[in-house]
């Protein structure tokens, strides 16, 4: 219960995102079952948004799956960060908590684990957060599809800007040091230059370039600090 309450601010953030996802999915021609089914089974907002926009531009299944892989790679970071806490739980707990490991869930439970560790049945807290956010996502997707089916010409509104605004809201506060800023600039520039590459390979090239520059700068800064 405590977990569900702590997720309230993030639920407020998820609802419009889910509404817009549902509306865009229905504008892209997905049926109610397919659009909500994607939220139920995949449960990854940004990957779902990108899948919809790729479907709109006529990309094939393989390309969309490949893009899902790249976009969701950041979850390995979350999985690694929570591993010390979750690793000792029974397998069914780990399966369940892994399914619900989104950006938002991570943000809430990470704070709690850092302050209190595994004390007082933390896995129930974690599960409460995950369940509340899951229901918010699936429910708002459903409402979004119903809304989208009633509003004609929804695709012409440019609702996809909501995705850009969300990503900007995640990235900008993370630009705390030079390597992070350089990673963002390089990834953005390479993405522009490589836009014409087929199969979303430009996205992969841009991500790899950004990561490489970030790591290289961090290592150089580390060496300078040691030699001074």
């Amino acid at each position, binding site marked *: 219960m405590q977990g569900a309450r702590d997720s309230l601010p993030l639920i407020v953030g998820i609802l419009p995102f889910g509404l817009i996802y549902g509306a865009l999915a229905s504008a892209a021609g997905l049926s109610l079952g397919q659009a909500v089914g994607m939220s139920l089974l995949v449960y990854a907002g940004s990957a779902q948004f990108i899948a919809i926009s790729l479907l709109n531009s006529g990309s094939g299944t393989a390309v969309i799956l490949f893009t899902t892989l790249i976009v969701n790679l950041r979850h390995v970071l979350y999985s690694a960060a929570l591993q010390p806490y979750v690793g000792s739980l029974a397998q069914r707990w780990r399966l369940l908590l892994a399914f619900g490991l989104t950006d938002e869930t991570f943000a809430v439970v990470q704070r709690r684990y850092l302050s209190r560790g595994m004390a007082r049945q933390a896995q129930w807290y974690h599960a409460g957060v995950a369940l509340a956010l899951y229901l918010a996502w699936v429910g708002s997707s459903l409402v979004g599809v119903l809304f989208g089916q009633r509003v004609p010409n929804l695709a012409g509104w440019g609702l996809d*800007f909501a995705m850009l605004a969300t990503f900007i809201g995640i990235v900008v506060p993370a630009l705390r040091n030079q390597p992070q800023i350089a990673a963002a600039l390089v990834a953005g520039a390479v993405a522009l230059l490589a836009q014409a590459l087929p199969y979303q390979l430009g996205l992969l090239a841009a991500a790899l*370039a950004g990561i490489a520059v970030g790591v290289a700068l961090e290592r150089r800064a580390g060496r300078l600090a040691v030699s001074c």
Partner: protein
Amino acid sequence: MEIWWLIFGMALLTFVIRYSLFAWPALRFAPVVRQGLQYVPTAVLSAIVVPGMLMPDGGPLALSLDNAYLLAGLATIVIAALSRHLLATIGGGLLVFFLLRGVLGQLPI
């Protein structure tokens, strides 16, 4: 049917990525991999945002004052830097975006 295969594929991939380190509690990454992971969100999301602002139609470059994605995107970056608050950034950014589209006559009404 094609769409359902896509959904199952995305679901499987997403789950495997999230479960990766919960599956093997003893697994540790090499330091360079752990360092690299710190830059994954920044690099991937920037690689989506920058073309989304500068090439909203999928290219070529739209460096013009009637590109609402570019202008509102820049405004959103400023809002994010000042507020450091995700909801305020999304809300403020969308507001600027739709105001611009309205002024530019780009809304389907």
